[in-house]
């Protein structure tokens, strides 16, 4: 099981993702600097971590989406490699047009750090298969721009095609149709605002995030 965590200037959950992958899924993890123009070979998973790439200046994820390494990430995704964008990573995936829609300022106009109960809407994805019967999981969010937006037709399509993977039980940020995480049509690129990388051991308040890392690596 081999995973890469992309490190943008301003990423701040890169180490957390590495720890989670190692402890929860026994993965071998390589950290890849945003300036690299090639990725390690034999990757089963690429993680775009949370944080404030480029300080979130201009727009969250906008500058990171233009990093040299993103061309490689896109190419890997096209080859079917699993890509997971968490929080700022989700924002980067949207800015890179690897996922539809965008993440707007929270409806409350404030950064919100809180535990969230999530409905696992689609447990058939390679990221969620490990949840099995578990239809509700608990993770935490921590963001100022987690308010998912897409136009109505896109939202209908996402729901119709089972691309909505996680839904908030109690919407913390005004996200359209309570969406917390979506997957691309091919099913190998997942973007989510909640942090599985902060919920991989019971003493952190929840170990539900571990299941996600385990299932995506098992799927490889």
């Amino acid at each position, binding site marked *: 099981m081999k995973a890469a965590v992309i490190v943008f*200037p*301003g990423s*701040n*959950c890169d*180490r*957390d993702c590495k*720890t*989670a992958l190692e402890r929860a899924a026994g993965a071998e993890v390589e950290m890849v600097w945003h300036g690299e123009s090639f990725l390690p070979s034999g990757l089963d998973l690429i993680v775009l971590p*949370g*944080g*404030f790439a*480029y*300080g*979130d*200046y201009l727009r969250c994820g906008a500058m990171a989406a233009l990093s040299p390494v993103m061309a490689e990430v896109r190419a890997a995704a096209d080859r079917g490699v699993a890509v997971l964008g968490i929080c700022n990573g989700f924002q980067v995936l949207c800015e890179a047009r690897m996922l539809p829609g965008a993440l707007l300022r929270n409806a*409350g106009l*404030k*950064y*919100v*750090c*809180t535990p969230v109960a999530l409905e696992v809407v689609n447990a058939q994805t390679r990221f969620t298969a490990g949840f099995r019967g578990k239809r509700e999981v608990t993770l*935490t969010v*921590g963001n*100022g721009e987690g308010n998912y937006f897409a136009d109505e037709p896109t939202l209908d399509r996402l729901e119709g095609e089972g691309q909505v993977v996680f839904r908030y039980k109690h919407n913390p940020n005004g996200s359209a149709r309570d969406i917390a995480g979506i997957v691309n049509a091919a099913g190998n690129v997942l973007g989510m605002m909640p*942090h599985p*990388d*902060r919920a*991989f051991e019971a*003493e*952190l*308040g929840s170990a539900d995030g571990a299941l996600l890392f385990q299932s995506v690596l098992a799927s490889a």
Partner: protein
Amino acid sequence: METPFHLAATAEEFGLKPEEYHLIVQRLNREPNHLELGIFSVMWSEHCSYKSSRVHLGKFPTTGERVIQGPGENAGVVDIGDGQAAIFKMESHNHPSFIEPYQGAATGVGGIMRDVFTMGARPIALLNALRFGDPSHPKTRRLLSGVVAGIGGYGNCVGVPTVAGETNFHRGYDGNILVNAMCVGLADTDKIFYSAAPGVGLPVVYFGSKTGRDGIHGATMASAEFGEDSDEKRPTVQVGDPFAEKLLIEATLELMATGAVAAIQDMGAAGLTSSSVEMAGKGGVGVELDLDLVPQREEGMSAYEMMLSESQERMLAIVKEGREDDARFVFAKWGLDAAVIGRTTDTGRLVLLHGGDVVCDIPLAPLTEDAPLYHRPWVEPHVEPHIDPAHIPAPADWDAAVLTLVAAPDVASKRWIWEQYDRHVMADTLEDSATGADAGIVRVHGTKKALAVTSDCTPRYVAANPFEGGKQAVAEAWRNLTAVGADPIAITDNLNFGNPERPEIMGQIARAIDGMAEACRLLDFPVVSGNVSLYNETGGVAIPPTPTVGAVGLIPDYARRADYASLRPGDVLLVVGTSHGELGSSLYLRELFGREEGAPPPVDLEFERRNGDFVRELIREGRLSAVHDLSDGGLVVGAAEMAMASNVGIELTPTSLKHAHAFLFGEDQGRYLIATADPDPIVAEALAAGLNIALAGQAGGHDFACHDLFRISLERLRAANEGWLPEYVGAG
């Protein structure tokens, strides 16, 4: 000889007294030029020189078997075993936050983090101690929102969890809010970096953000009383760039790992001046800088502006001979500006070149070790007389009284504040503001160890009796660490007071420090770092004396710790410690009767320690389901918080109903509310150990109640406690 005073007027503007100007002329044997005068004024400012407080700070115990570095460096360093060290400090950004709350608070957080990673530590936890004016004051709402947004905006972006803090409101802070930020970092004991320049001829490397005209005279500003003209005195506000800080942390730690760093120091207050002077001064060498080489953000900056700029996110390092390239490589990777701007010399002087000319050439000693030191006159501060509980009425309406207290601004839930702080980044947070524990707890990454952190001060006690209040601040911090099962290690402090030139204020400072020092001694709780903020007054009215204490403790095995959110139905509640029903300067008296008077509850340090050691042992043995120290609002507030956090009802059963209100609302010190399924052996052991322990109640049901005095559903209790702040800020 008569000294000419043609610059004396300028000196006055810089906050230097005429006699201080006179002293400069004597030390130099000549008139200083404008730049040199500016340098003296910041180095001799209260903020950098501690000229009023130093003689008193000397009373603090600063050593102990775990202390690796006490006061004198950028932060204090303590040994936490296994070759690891905790590095921490607290610092104020009071004046800047009052002028521009968002940027003032944000740059405060940035500054204290730099003090910590400058020493080789990766920051792992942030705390903040905030004091605002009366909620009804027109400025309070805006200041609160701005400060909280600024702290979150900076800390969240850098990616260090903000796990604990405190927030008070009192009209005494209407014109001078307090923003004290604390940072705790983790390092290996063999990889700690210091600021003393280790030799001559070594390259001095500037790195980080470019220098602009930000906050010129911030240090002298921070040492001046607000007058009507403070708008004019206002320095150009410093703007923080947390993104640059994040890069700075990574680059600094990476540079240190290359082994190229000989000495390093952040540019804090008085920027390039204090950092270069302190490094050379501590190393007993001289330094020569060519200011033309300083990375500059603006055109045509003068030497004066560069030396006094307080642009943020800048560092100064002295690298080993021939290792400049390691530095260049790291800075290039992280996209940081950097330049070799000078060398250390053997002259013991500060020499500055600009445009090819020598624009400053002064000895370092007068700037550092022989800067002025004042034994300011002081008088015994007023102390409030003891009040007999019998002379304080019981509440007319008990339900209303309890609800009023849990909704009082100082007690009400601060959720609206801490939900704006990232408490989970770094994935090692075990307890934070949200979880119902007396201290924040973060794991020491990859070990079974954890650090407990807290920040405490009860200004109304210090105001009523500076000595007892000083003791209490230290004791409460010790108690909070103990209540989660930690071994208290050491403290940092932030002494916030008014104008030290007034003997009654100086008396508060002296006595508060005496009290703190006594508590530190008897609790083996040394002071390893801190900060002093004076002149917190407006129009001659000083803030309540506020010596904030930040403390760090070690939990050897985090599986054995306690919180107050795990109360179980059927548990028996006990109070460890003695309850006389002290209501002097209590929250009860203030919130229900508008009376701010009476002696604060005294702290018996011997019992403080014995009660705490007893409770800590029970926690380690896994015999308690919940623990909460008793402080503001006494048993009622402590038990209410435990019930709400655990979502389990509590029926209180005071032993005596004579003066029940004193027993229930009294703020006697050194007490813990503990919950257990098996009380008898614990009671027996406590009595055998000569400690007081009393039955306090029973857990169960869904009400918070006491006999026929009051009965309130948890829902109502929570609505009152959670409701106040959102409603106040209009987010309700």
